């Protein structure tokens, strides 16, 4: 099992959700986050006072998947979150050791 974690542009969230839904993944967790990478921040000006906003708003998604689906999911995210401009984000894949479904107590593959 793997945990796929991706940081993407917030307005791409719905497309990503649809893309992974289409390949049979039925669950993800979304967090609003801020961060910086190669995409630079922006400047805001309030009555002449300039503030550089270094951290850009992003959406972070986390999806637990079976090993069989990992490559498809990564590809689906990469394609659906893609705009071709700096700041499209990154995808991280982690090994996942245990999963428990709270309602039934099912474990691992059965709980995903």
């Amino acid at each position, binding site marked *: 099992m793997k945990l796929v974690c991706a940081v993407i542009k917030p307005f791409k969230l719905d497309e990503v959700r649809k893309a992974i839904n289409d390949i049979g993944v039925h669950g993800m967790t979304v967090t609003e986050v801020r961060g910086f990478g190669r995409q630079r921040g922006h400047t*805001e*000006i*309030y*009555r*002449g*006072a300039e*503030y*550089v*906003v270094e951290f850009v708003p992003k959406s972070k998604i986390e999806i637990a998947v079976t090993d069989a689906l990992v490559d498809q999911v990564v590809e689906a995210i990469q394609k659906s979150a893609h705009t071709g401009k700096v700041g499209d984000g990154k995808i991280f894949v982690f090994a996942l050791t245990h999963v428990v479904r709270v309602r039934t107590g099912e474990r691992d593959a059965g709980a995903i």
Partner: protein
Amino acid sequence: MIKLSLILGLLMACTPMVHADETPGAPASAVAAPSAAPTPAPTAPFMLAADKLSSGDTAWMLTSTALVLMMCVPGLALFYGGMVRKKNVLATLMQSFACTCVVTILWWVIGYSWAFTPGSAFLGGASRALFDGLRYVHGDGGSSLSVSHLAPTIPESVYAMFQMTFAIITPALIAGAFADRMKFSAMLLFLSAWSLLVYAPIAHMVWEPTGWLNAAGVLDYAGGTVVHINAGIAGLASCIVLGKRLGYGREAMPPHNLTYTLIGASLLWVGWFGFNAGSAVAADGRAGMAMLATQMATGAAALGWMFTEWLGKGKPSVLGIASGAVAGLVAITPASGYVAPTGAVIIGAAAGVVCYFAATTLKHAFRYDDSLDAFGVHGIGGILGALLTGVFFSKELTGVDSSIGHQLFTQLKGVLTTVVYGFAVSYVLLIVIDKTLGLRVTEEQEREGLDISLHGESIE
């Protein structure tokens, strides 16, 4: 007393020549004096049969009063509240709301009497303390009530209440300069003392016929001097005495929610029709002209600020257009009943551009931390408006037949008196409070935010 009889004589001498509302130096409120009255205009509050009132004027003044109260809460509260950081939003809203409540009581205690009853050249008398003598008597042979000599066609209760709303918003405006760092207790004490020792005397000097600036012929239609220069200069004094906010110039201090600010500015705009058109103290042609001038100046000023910022910084901002609108409202306040629409457009446009530079360049050049630009917008906008009133006043509207140079000099007298007196008394009050009660919150409280540290509450 000599001065009083002098002014009385002057007033009587003027009466046969011109309509009462065209008396040089008469406050806007004299507009409503019945033109057919054969007796000289009254110089103190007096009793009148209720059927002698104008129901039209009374209806409009009841409405105006509510509109001006709306300017402070929620208008000003939201305008300021949106501009501060998230940790200080409630404290900022609280300042406007608490000021409203405190001044209400002080106005009843002595404020109204000191401002709007005859007295010396500098301060009114104490005859209306606790609203003593302010009456409405319902009798079998018809009702009678007291009316102010400044508003003889409406009940004195309505006039006192209308003026109360002006007394409420003026100290609340100062809060923009000291936002984010003053103790709540110190603020209550300062605004209370200021209301009685600065607002009431200046209002008396400018608007009550025994006041010396009124007698000198200063034109201040709705309070450019009394309200805006006065609040602005007190704001400057308070940010100088308090010092800068922690991290000012190094840390980012972006406004928390400009939606609030835009809603606040819009409520101020609408409420200002009560402020300016209401200052006619009548539902008449002058009120109409004042309303029109107010609208023209506000539009022009908002655009003036917006385009200046657009050219200088590359983008037209929401905070900019809202600030420009308020700057225009401020600048047209002393002029609104006295200038034609074209003059209003020029005054407004000038205010938008000048206040933009006051809030962005002047503040940084002199290194004072006027948090929300109370001085930059109200002080500078008020001074500009007061002076330009001396340039653009219409003879047709005012009946004042003096040269521009002469009127400008008169206006300057009003401006300087307010600036010097207002700054000096505010400064002393602040120093005294600082030495006794303490003016500023601790560093820890300021870092944590005033919402939690002063009020024990927070948003989200």
